[in-house]
């Protein structure tokens, strides 16, 4: 008997914990509210099943615990009941799967007007690159990376010259404009994850991965690395600042492009050679 009561309290406690928990998700700050809705839906259906199954179990414990003079029912199977349960479960599962797949379809299909951002990860930090006026990012190679070319842009790629390079681990985004995050890594796996945006994807060395979202809350957010990347994993942070269009444009103006960088280097080189000549 005690067992039944304790199990009942465990179920009750779980439900109460869920209702009153101070630990729950942060407010969503992107277009992926649909993920939250699907989670909520899963909670209702799944939670309902959990409670139903457990309460049924507790009821059985109360009602059918051992008595010397009673005999259990002998009923090897009940085809009808099993069929009903199978179909009901299938239906419930389909109800969960459908929104999941619909949202995934949106997740993998990037809107046309999304701005591409190259997020490059290394042990342990992030750096960002935006396409310049041509709206296209230049191609890259890991072997090209050096102090003069921090992103490893292919020098012969004309799209690369006007790429905007962010000299910080904080990236600014324009509010209500979709962004396509292009992730790459130069060493191990990383994962560019902002809990408030809900979305995430691994950065894998050797290929470029992507995902997209549309920020819809102005503010600052912290970027976490969500794929184990070595002993510095827990401290690998970055930042995102979502701004209105005006602020964003101002910020963009101040950033350096790749050709600026090259020009600067050339000036430096020439002055160095001049110095050397003197």
């Amino acid at each position: 008997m005690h067992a039944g009561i304790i199990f009942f309290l465990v179920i009750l406690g779980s439900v109460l914990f869920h209702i009153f928990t101070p630990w729950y998700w942060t407010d969503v700050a992107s277009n992926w509210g649909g993920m939250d809705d699907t989670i909520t839906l899963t909670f209702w259906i799944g939670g309902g099943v959990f409670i139903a199954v457990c309460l049924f179990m507790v009821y059985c414990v109360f009602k059918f615990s051992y008595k010397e003079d009673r005999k259990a029912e002998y009923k090897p199977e009940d085809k009808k009941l099993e069929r009903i349960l199978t179909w009901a479960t299938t239906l419930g599962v389909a109800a969960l799967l459908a929104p999941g797949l619909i949202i995934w379809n949106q997740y993998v299909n990037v809107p046309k007007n999304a701005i591409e951002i190259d997020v490059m990860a290394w042990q342990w930090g992030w750096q960002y690159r935006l396409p310049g006026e041509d709206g296209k990012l230049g191609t890259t190679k890991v072997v090209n990376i050096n102090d003069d070319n921090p992103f490893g842009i292919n020098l012969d790629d004309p799209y690369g010259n006007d790429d905007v390079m962010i000299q910080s681990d904080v990236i600014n985004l324009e509010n209500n404009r979709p962004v396509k995050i292009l992730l790459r890594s130069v060493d191990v796996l990383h994962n560019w994850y902002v809990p408030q945006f809900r979305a995430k994807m691994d950065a894998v060395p050797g290929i470029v991965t992507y995902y997209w979202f549309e920020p819809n809350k102005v503010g600052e957010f912290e970027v976490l690395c969500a794929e184990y990347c070595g002993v510095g994993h827990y401290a690998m942070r970055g930042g995102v600042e979502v701004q209105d269009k005006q602020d964003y444009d101002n910020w963009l103006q101040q950033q350096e492009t790749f050709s600026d960088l090259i020009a600067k280097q050339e000036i430096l080189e020439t002055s160095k050679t001049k110095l050397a000549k003197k």
Partner: protein
Amino acid sequence: MSEDFNDNKTIQAQSSETISGGGGSGLSPDKDYVRPAEISEQDLYHGHSFITKWVFCQDAKVIGVQYFLLATFTGIIGLILSWLMRLQLGFPELAGFMTAEHYYQFVTMHGMIMVVYFLTALFLGGFGNFLIPLMVGARDMVFPYLNMVSFWMFFVAVGVLLASFFVPGGPTGSGWTLYPPQAILEGTPGSGYGIMLMCISLILFVAGFTMGGLNYLITVLQARTRGMTLMRMPLTVWGIFTATVLAMLAFPALLVGALMMSLDNVLGTSFFMPTILKAGEVLEYGGGSPILFQHLFWFFGHPEVYIVALPAFGIISDLISVHARKNIFGYRMMVWAIVGIGALSFFVWAHHMYVSGMNPWFGFFFATTTLIIAVPTAMKVYNWILTLWRGNIRLNTVMLWCLGFIVTFVNGGITGIFLGNVSVDVPLSDTYFVIAHFHMVMGIAPLMVIMGAVYHWFPLVSGRLLDEKLGKWHFWLTFLGAYSIYFPMHYLGFIGVPRRYFEMYDSPYMTSAVGMNEFISIAAFIVGAAQLILMYNIIKTLKVGKPAGHNPWKACSLEWLTPSVPPEHGNWGDKLPIVHRWAYDFSVPGAKEDFITQTTPPSEVANTEVEKT
């Protein structure tokens, strides 16, 4: 050597016999007919010395106990590692001796030990060896020598694994998934010797396991006793059998992955290694694909989850049925669910990789297959609770573990639906939600089954019943403690706390988790310590426990029907048992007692409504 075999023990006696020796009243030859033996009696090697009897022993039961003890030993190491991790997460100020390197090494070793060297070895090696021959009515495994080698290979594999704690650089700290390039890149703890030893240990484990697995499979398929059809086997055997099939087909992928990674590490090949820039230098790798390893790993890894889960499903079905004094509800459905889950498990592996950067279109395929698996799994849960319905439930320790299993398994199964459903997985993957999910569903739930099985079958192994009162304390501390570790942990995942963080650092929404982490750590210490109760119970029982006698639980299945308890080498004395029915004829209307054993011939229970299986 040949004098060690009792060649002509009872070989021919069997095949000439056509009618079972029931000996009851109203013996009707037609009804009780079981066709003659097809396979000749097995020759067994009976050891004489201590070494051949207890060390290099060819008796499956002894090998099972050996597996059990060694797996438990490694499991305790895994438990201690988890304590150290929880100490760091809950009370970092007390864990000043731990660096991030240590932490990640502990994470890795804890994961690998628990999944492969503890749970897999315990369920298949331990319970499989002990129970399969007894439950299908065989004298022993079909290849006893190979079976012995299997255990000693496992022994060496564990040795190699533990040796990695003592090599320069320590054990590998790349996470239990061993993802390259991390695993073999300098800077990761144990990137030299540690990962090498891990790969070698895994390869040895796979080789050893293959030997054992062949034994389990052929014993079930080809060495059942007369009358034992597949559909009369206890679900325990079904679970272990299907899990072994999965293991035989899934471990090759792990073997290949481990081998290729060793080559990347030692020879500098680039199977998994793309061009890598490390500390300003481009390494001499290029063109490889880290995702390939992930596919290989999870092609093994997902079936591996079911390698642990299916034996648990099987065992729990038997325990519930015996202690609810009621046949398992929907036996056929249960068998097909086990087989179906096993088959499907080969088509769902990439649901561990939704955000790994694989071809994004795979998401649709794998989400669908994954959620299809939920249906047979749910059916199993329904059938367990429907078995309780109108049963006559003994609320003893074994049943408590079963009930605990149902709660934790349903809980973990439902969170599995979150993670299997591709776009719901996106915000939750790589967070504490995942940790809570898989610990609940394949850590705690199988542990509940193991404990239940220990309390259930200990009388068979030792001949004595474990103490009930201590058992109940053990159960409640473990169950309530474990539940309060992992239930709240899901909510850390909702906040967005990523997994594998050495410390929570200073994010505003993560600092709110500090209190919870302390609570979880305390619960973890209590649960771990509670296992001492079991040890004390076992030691006490071995000394002064109540003798169990024959069939203390009044079960129907064959393992309780041996002529001696504990069973001797060869299991069945002179005559192999003859099976007439399934293993679940409990509370049959009209029968004298509330159970009819599998060997009871139909003529003895002619007036009852027994199931026609």
